[in-house]
């Protein structure tokens, strides 16, 4: 009762702000929340006559294929491991590059390099995988040609599993650096000059200014990127792994993530129930993780928390 009055009171007080949110709320309600009914598919065996609610209920059967081969735990670890590395290295690098670029004076150079660093974002992984094969293959690849010309032995890159976590991380960074760098760059641009002026008067050198002003001011941006990355820690980057590794089973131990596993499992006989089940597993995992992290962030500084 009391709460209701509180809400109405708020509604009345901030009716313009509520009105400004209506399109957003509607958008997510329709585009995202309505289709969530489909989560029910995870527990049914789909048949065409029955549709969503008429198909037989099968309980947790659809989840079985995930643990049937006994590698679910390893897939989960792989997925999380890769994403953690992506988050840490990706963010560190894009912050560093954003700072470097923000300190560079030459306008043309700045623009040109920024544009170039954005290029990989446009490249589809299908094309990239073709070029990667061209660079890495044993007999005629770029890398091995280079090694041979220097009198070194050729490396069989595609059959050397330990190289792949490094390569995949490199490709990930190569592809996404431009994108996240721009976010940080925009944040840096938003920092008021007053801070720098004051620091300068205090006699701080360039490194001190970066460390004591720029880096702390990027924290909120970092937290947002972190929370979104964590929420999808069990998903994402399917193309990166699938296109680069493909059918090379020798690498699966170190490169298989849940998405690729599910894709390969369902490619031939697609099953709505099983696909939904896999998605639900990923979602629940991400959900628990994000609630925990967000709670921790809230404890430290409420402003940075997402909700």
């Amino acid at each position, binding site marked *: 009762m009391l709460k209701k009055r509180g809400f109405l009171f708020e509604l009345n007080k901030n009716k313009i702000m509520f009105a400004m949110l209506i399109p957003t709320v509607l958008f997510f*309600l329709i585009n995202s*929340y*309505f289709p*969530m*009914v489909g*989560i*029910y598919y995870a527990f049914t*065996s*789909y*048949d*065409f*006559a029955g*549709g*969503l*609610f008429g198909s037989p209920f099968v309980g947790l*059967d659809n989840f*079985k*294929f995930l643990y*049937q*081969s*006994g*590698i679910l735990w390893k897939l989960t670890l792989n997925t999380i491991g890769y994403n953690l590395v992506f988050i840490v290295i990706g963010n560190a690098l894009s912050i560093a590059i954003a700072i470097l670029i923000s300190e560079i004076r030459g306008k043309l150079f700045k623009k040109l390099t920024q544009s170039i660093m954005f290029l990989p974002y446009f490249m589809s992984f299908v094309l990239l*995988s*073709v070029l990667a*094969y061209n660079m*890495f*293959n*044993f*007999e005629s690849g770029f890398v091995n040609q280079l090694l041979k010309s220097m009198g070194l032995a050729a490396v*069989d*890159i*595609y*059959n050397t599993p330990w190289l792949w976590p490094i390569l995949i991380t490199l490709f990930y960074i190569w592809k996404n650096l431009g994108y996240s760098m721009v976010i940080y760059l925009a944040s840096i641009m938003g920092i008021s000059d007053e801070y720098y002026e004051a620091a300068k008067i205090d006699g701080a050198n360039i490194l001190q200014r970066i460390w004591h002003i720029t880096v702390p001011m990027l924290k909120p941006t970092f937290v947002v990127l972190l929370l979104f990355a964590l929420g999808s820690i069990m998903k994402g980057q399917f193309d990166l792994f699938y296109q680069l*590794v*493909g*059918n*090379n*089973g*020798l690498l*699966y*131990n170190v490169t*298989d993530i849940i998405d690729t*596993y599910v894709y*390969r*499992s*369902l490619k*031939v*006989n*697609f*099953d*709505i129930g*099983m696909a939904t089940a896999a998605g639900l597993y990923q979602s629940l995992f991400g959900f628990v993780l994000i*609630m925990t992290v967000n709670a921790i962030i809230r404890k430290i500084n409420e402003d940075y928390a997402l909700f």
Partner: protein
Amino acid sequence: MGKRRLLTLCTVTLLTASMLAGCGGTKTEAEKPSVDKSQTKDNGDNSTTTTTANGIDTSEKVELQFYMLGEAPKDLPTIQEEINKLALADLNATVKFNFTTWTDWSQKYKLLLSSGQPIDLIFTADWTEYQSYAKKGAFLPLDELLPKAAPKLNEFVPKDMWEAVKIDKKIYTVPATWKEYVTEGIAYREDLRKKYNLPKPESIETLEQYLDGIRKNEPNLLPLADNQGYHTSSVRQLTTKTVNSSNTVPYGLNIMYDKPRDVTSYWGSPQHLADLKMYKTWADKGYWPKNVLNIKDSGHDVFANGKAAAILGSENPNRYNDSVIKIKSLHPDWELGYFPYPNAKGFAQPVHPIHNGFAIPRTSKHPERALAFYEKMVTDKRYNWLTQYGIEGKNFEVEDGKYYKMLGDAQSNGFPREGMQGWAWRNPEFMLFDKSFDAVLTMFSEFDKIAKPDIFQGFPEDWSPYQAEKAAVEQVEKQYLYPLNVGLVEDVEGGLKLFMEKAKQAGLDKIQEEYTKQWLKYLDDIGQ
């Protein structure tokens, strides 16, 4: 705090659920026909011809939704217009030809069928999982509809073909009647073979001799063009009488044509080990590149562009003919040779009737008209030629009274031969072939002499009892067997052992057992 949030969330989800359920499929379906009716009102004057010759009600003008896989030809709008002129007069119907394109076609196909949107005609094939969709109730049974709505078509398709496409004793698709062979064979460079005096690669021994000879004399040429390790099924075609004409029998099973009831496991058998050891030596000799599993080029392209000296899989008569034409234009001095696997097996299997067909999804609003229209596509030469070859004089000409001749070239012609991927409504009586296709037809008539019916494709596998195991075993196969297939594992014996162990863990035994049971029952049903 968190609990309350979850609660609200649940309510929201439930709410939306009930909303969606409330306005569920039945309602939209009830809405749709009224739209159709309003469309027909302005055509009331057409009502004089309310029935066609075959007795279905055509008083209402309808638009049929036709779905085919692949790319739409550039000239489709013109063709559609022409067809609609005919169909409006004949059936008081128009048709909209929709194409899925090849981008994620399998996903799209699944969405089209499971979303409940009205579709009147859709392509079916073994490789689009016709059996599985039919079993799950995605298509309408046609048994009663056929004599009424498409009597001519009903007569036109031979009885045994209707029998062959039946799933659970019901017809769900209209099969194509053109008899073709898509059996594979070894394609090789005949000019090099002659040059270095090598034997014709027609058995494992001669194949090895040929490849060794190439390796020795042409170090820059790849001996084999196979990618992804697909040579395994090719070798089985060459060395056994495997029941299947193209793909392997799944789950590592061994089923031979002469003794189809005799089901054993090929995976893990001594023969399997011997084969894998042979692949290892092939890999060591450099028959294929080390990173063969990561190659993206199609083997066909690699071979047809002269990068490799032979190809084991992927060349059926039609494609081989393609390679011949391509090589002829690129390198007139080269020569190709071909050894079809049926010659090794001693019999050839024409494609199974379910290989190409058209079904009426259960969401169709006008099944009768759809079937009547499809009858026209197959049995009426005007419809058939328009949708197979385009407009005469604009897209093609008939040469010497029987050959198809494209006007312009494949790049500029807006409707090349079979531009609508009309594999399913080919009618042998109307078919026109390019002159170059004579070679394929000759090959086909050779195969006719040793033809035996395909008993495999009609088998409607029901994998729902072992769905999870199937998915898991497919994973294990990729992870542990593929590397063995291309000779990347040093210890072949240990590798095979590991693979079998993992496969058994994933449920291979259960799959093989269940599959065998279904297979034997199927053989009983078809009287084998």
